[in-house]
């Protein structure tokens, strides 16, 4: 039994299971919800098995087709991929459970096959060790995300989806042109081989520039964030949870891999300080717009713009502590932001709208939902013991250690802004309004799902040593200065 767990290619299972889930949900609509739950559960189990394997035997590569790089494609699983896969499995499971309560039957049957294709694409992306294969996974991710955004068919959703589609297309084309230049310069598509061969040249700089800009566009880094707020605000709530929680991190993950592994010397053309400065702009612009937002989902969407800004602070810092902090932030933000959107979904399901000032005693009527929102808020603000606290603590530490106190200042000020918009929502949830709507009873499972994710995001701070240890599997930070 133990031998099977430590030698079986679980990464492959993580890709095949959701693909099979998508096909079966499409073929057998009558039992689709059971198929969906089993698929989501199987994903969680496979990630656990993969974690056991990685913790006991370290990182591993899987040569697809038995060819091996450079001719074939290799899958690559290390601590970094494990964290992203785990976040995908947990958020994926929660969203699957939630969607069964949230969507009416017809919508659910449209949602499930596309949803599992999205999960398969994300898993494929987090496991890929090949820059062209990453392009394919990116396209699959982007198209699935856009299709899910447009699903509700409303005016705002359709327009937002169209914008999102163009943004994601430009992003992947730009990335692909970078891949082309890399391939024709160094004759390989494999990360590990490229890491040995890449050297500075005009083509390398252009490729890094094209790939970085394309991926920053897909990650919605300020000022390339224009497509994100409408898309995340007008998609159905479970979709928004996946978009903010997982999809924006997928392109950021590729950027991390490129900077960490392929272009260690290529930092010169786009200085890390420039990306960091854009990050600071994103923090304040996103925070300000979140404060001004009158709708809950739009507020949460702008909060994502803000959090993406934090991610990019890692580039000027670039020490092991900073990388730890950012990866921890990716993980805790995935859980907290998904919880927030699911809580918002509960409120919309209950009241039929998400206008913040018209919230009518949500605290009394949906106590679990409000608790979920507030707990997730604790994590987003960076208060202890939430996961966000550990993440920001590490990042502040990294900036002070490297003598760049201004990044720390941005981090702390950003947390104050985040606190302000979280309290704005919580405050309105206790008041009574004159507006009376017909309300719907929210299924208990939906409330529990949001709360469970929020609790997980807070508890993450208490068990922080585990993910911090897992990140090191495979030694991805070997080339990074300690401070």
């Amino acid at each position: 039994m133990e031998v099977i767990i430590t030698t079986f290619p679980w990464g492959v299972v993580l890709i095949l299971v959701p693909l099979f889930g998508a096909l079966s949900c499409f073929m057998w609509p009558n039992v689709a919800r059971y198929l969906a739950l089993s698929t989501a559960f199987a994903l969680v189990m496979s990630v656990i098995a993969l974690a056991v394997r990685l913790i006991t035997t370290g990182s591993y590569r899987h040569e697809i087709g038995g060819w091996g790089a450079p001719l074939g494609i290799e899958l690559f699983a290390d601590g970094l991929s494990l964290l992203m896969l785990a976040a995908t499995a947990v958020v994926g499971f929660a969203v699957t459970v939630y969607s069964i309560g949230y969507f009416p039957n017809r919508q659910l049957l449209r949602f499930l096959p596309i949803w599992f294709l999205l999960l398969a694409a994300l898993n494929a992306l987090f496991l890929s060790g090949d820059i062209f294969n990453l392009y394919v996974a990116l396209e699959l991710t982007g198209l699935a995300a856009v299709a899910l955004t447009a699903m509700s068919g409303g005016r705002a959703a359709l327009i937002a989806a169209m914008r999102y589609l163009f943004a994601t297309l430009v992003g992947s084309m730009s990335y692909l042109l970078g891949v082309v230049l890399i391939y024709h310069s160094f004759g390989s598509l494999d990360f590990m081989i490229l890491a040995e061969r890449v050297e500075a040249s005009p083509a390398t700089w252009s490729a890094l520039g094209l790939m970085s800009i394309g991926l920053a566009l897909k990650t919605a880094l300020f000022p390339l964030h224009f497509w994100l707020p409408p898309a995340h605000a007008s998609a159905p709530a479970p979709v928004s949870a996946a978009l903010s929680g997982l999809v924006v991190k997928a392109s950021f993950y590729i950027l991390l891999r490129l900077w960490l592994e392929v272009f260690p010397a290529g930092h010169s053309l786009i200085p890390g300080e420039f990306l960091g400065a854009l990050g600071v702009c994103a923090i304040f612009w996103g925070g300000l717009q979140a404060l001004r937002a009158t709708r809950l989902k739009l507020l949460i969407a702008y909060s994502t713009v803000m959090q993406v800004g934090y991610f990019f602070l890692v580039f000027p810092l670039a020490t092991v502590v900073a990388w730890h902090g950012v990866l921890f932030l990716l993980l805790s933000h995935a859980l907290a932001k998904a919880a927030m959107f699911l809580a918002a979904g509960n409120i919309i399901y209950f009241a039929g709208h998400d206008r913040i000032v018209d919230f009518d005693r949500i605290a009394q009527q949906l106590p679990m939902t409000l608790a979920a929102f507030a707990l997730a808020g604790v994590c987003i603000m960076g208060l202890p013991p939430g996961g966000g606290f550990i993440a920001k603590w590490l990042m502040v530490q990294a900036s002070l250690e490297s003598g760049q106190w201004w990044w720390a200042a941005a981090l702390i000020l950003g947390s104050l802004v985040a606190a302000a918009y979280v309290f704005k929502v919580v405050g309105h949830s206790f008041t009574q309004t004159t507006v009376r709507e017909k309300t719907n009873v929210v299924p208990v499972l939906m409330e529990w799902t949001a709360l469970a994710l929020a609790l997980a995001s807070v508890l993450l701070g208490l068990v922080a040593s585990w993910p911090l240890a897992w990140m090191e599997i495979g030694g991805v930070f070997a080339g990074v200065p300690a401070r």
Partner: protein
Amino acid sequence: MTTETLYALVGVGLFILGLYALFVRANLLRKILAANVMSSGVFLVLVALARRTGTVAPDPVPHAMVITGIVVAVSVTAFALILMLRIAMKTGQTELPDTWSE
């Protein structure tokens, strides 16, 4: 200048043309055309440079990449066109509004 460089430069030109049109054209159908021109440009760079093998036969890996790329492009185009039609049905327009609201 060699054949491969010439066509690679034409590919760069197509990429830029498409990108520019995608920025400045408002009509959605034209934006979709622009995205297609852009991807044709990337494919052209990829395949033109694949002839630099020094032998008669070009490198087949980029060819395979482009064939799959063309299929992806047509599926995305089909989806984008239907999305455009839905927007036209809802708003009566084939342009995206500058601001957005419910």
